[in-house]
């Protein structure tokens, strides 16, 4: 049963658009342009990764072997499930089901927190073994590396790439918190669902970035 009190009673169309369809298309294009610059940002990091991986393949194999594949795989599943709950949140908003909307948005936030908690333990493990470049670098510790200098290069890339990904997730939490309050107040509904859909786009994009980071960082053999 849809909740007719969710969001505005009538669709809001700005003066400079002919109709709602044109407004939706224009805002979709705007969102994709935003995602394009985000993709270029991570693309630059991937370029650096590809360059050094081709240059020092043996270093990347050795560095990757120090990463915890189980934690990486668990995080992949966590992000995948959070993508499903986010998509379901958008669907619930579109069809006007407030209770489901709140449950799915809360689940998405909870799964995002779980991802970062796992990441925290992973980073703590690297710190413990002295594998954090510049801050705590001890390649001759428990996990000794063949070539410490080039090994530092791999871990620099690992922390920059996974760190920027985690930073994007933290930004996502900020947005999600605002959306949670707005959803609680029933500001979004069948006549106003695009903001929720675009937050979903952002969340899915963060998932896509991890889809590439997982095999490229954790599964080099």
């Amino acid at each position, binding site marked *: 049963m849809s909740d007719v009190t969710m969001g505005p009673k009538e669709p809001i169309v700005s003066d400079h658009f002919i109709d709602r369809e044109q407004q939706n298309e224009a805002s979709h294009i705007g969102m994709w342009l935003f995602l394009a610059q985000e*993709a270029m940002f991570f693309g630059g990091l991937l370029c650096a990764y590809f360059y050094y991986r081709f240059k020092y393949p043996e270093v*990347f194999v050795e560095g990757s072997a120090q990463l915890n594949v189980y934690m990486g795989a668990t995080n992949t599943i966590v992000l995948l499930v959070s993508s499903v709950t986010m998509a379901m949140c958008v669907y619930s908003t579109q069809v006007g089901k407030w209770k489901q909307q709140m449950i799915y948005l809360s689940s998405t936030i909870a799964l995002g927190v779980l991802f970062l908690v796992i990441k925290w333990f992973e980073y703590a493990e690297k710190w413990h073994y002295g594998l954090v470049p510049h801050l705590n670098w001890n390649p001759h510790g428990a996990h000794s590396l063949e070539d410490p200098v080039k090994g530092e290069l791999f871990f620099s890339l690992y922390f920059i790439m996974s760190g920027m990904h985690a930073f994007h997730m933290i930004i996502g939490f900020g947005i999600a918190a605002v959306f949670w309050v707005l959803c609680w107040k029933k500001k979004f509904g069948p006549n106003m669902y695009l903001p929720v859909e675009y937050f979903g786009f952002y969340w899915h994009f963060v998932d896509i970035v991890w889809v590439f980071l997982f*095999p490229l960082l954790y599964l080099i053999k």
Partner: protein
Amino acid sequence: MSENEHADDHAGHFIVPPKYYIINAVVIAILMFLTIAASEVTFPGGVNGVGYWVALLIAILKAACIVSIFMGVKWNTPLVKVFALGVVGWLIILFTFPMIDIASAKWELGTPYSDIGHEGENTLFMDDDAELLVDAEPKAD
């Protein structure tokens, strides 16, 4: 049964039925396990050989599933599809030039970390006759 019979339509905006999300998630999960399984297989070509390209191909397939179903591009207007595909186009340009560079340049020396064990041989500090330009050496303060 056509796709449009499955769903409601809001001002020309297709509302994706939840079963599509579930099926898509299962497909992505299968691809994830395939990625892990493929990493255990010894492919020809070493680290950057066939195995590397297999991992990248699976990642691209997973990304395509997320973009087309979760982000709903499959049901968007042709213009939005052009912009979504435009992202891929920009990334291809971004990756192509460094890849050409990697494939063509012989930068054994002159790049970061590359002169370890070859101090004084860095080609960045040499003239055309491979003579070391002393003045160009960074000063140690």
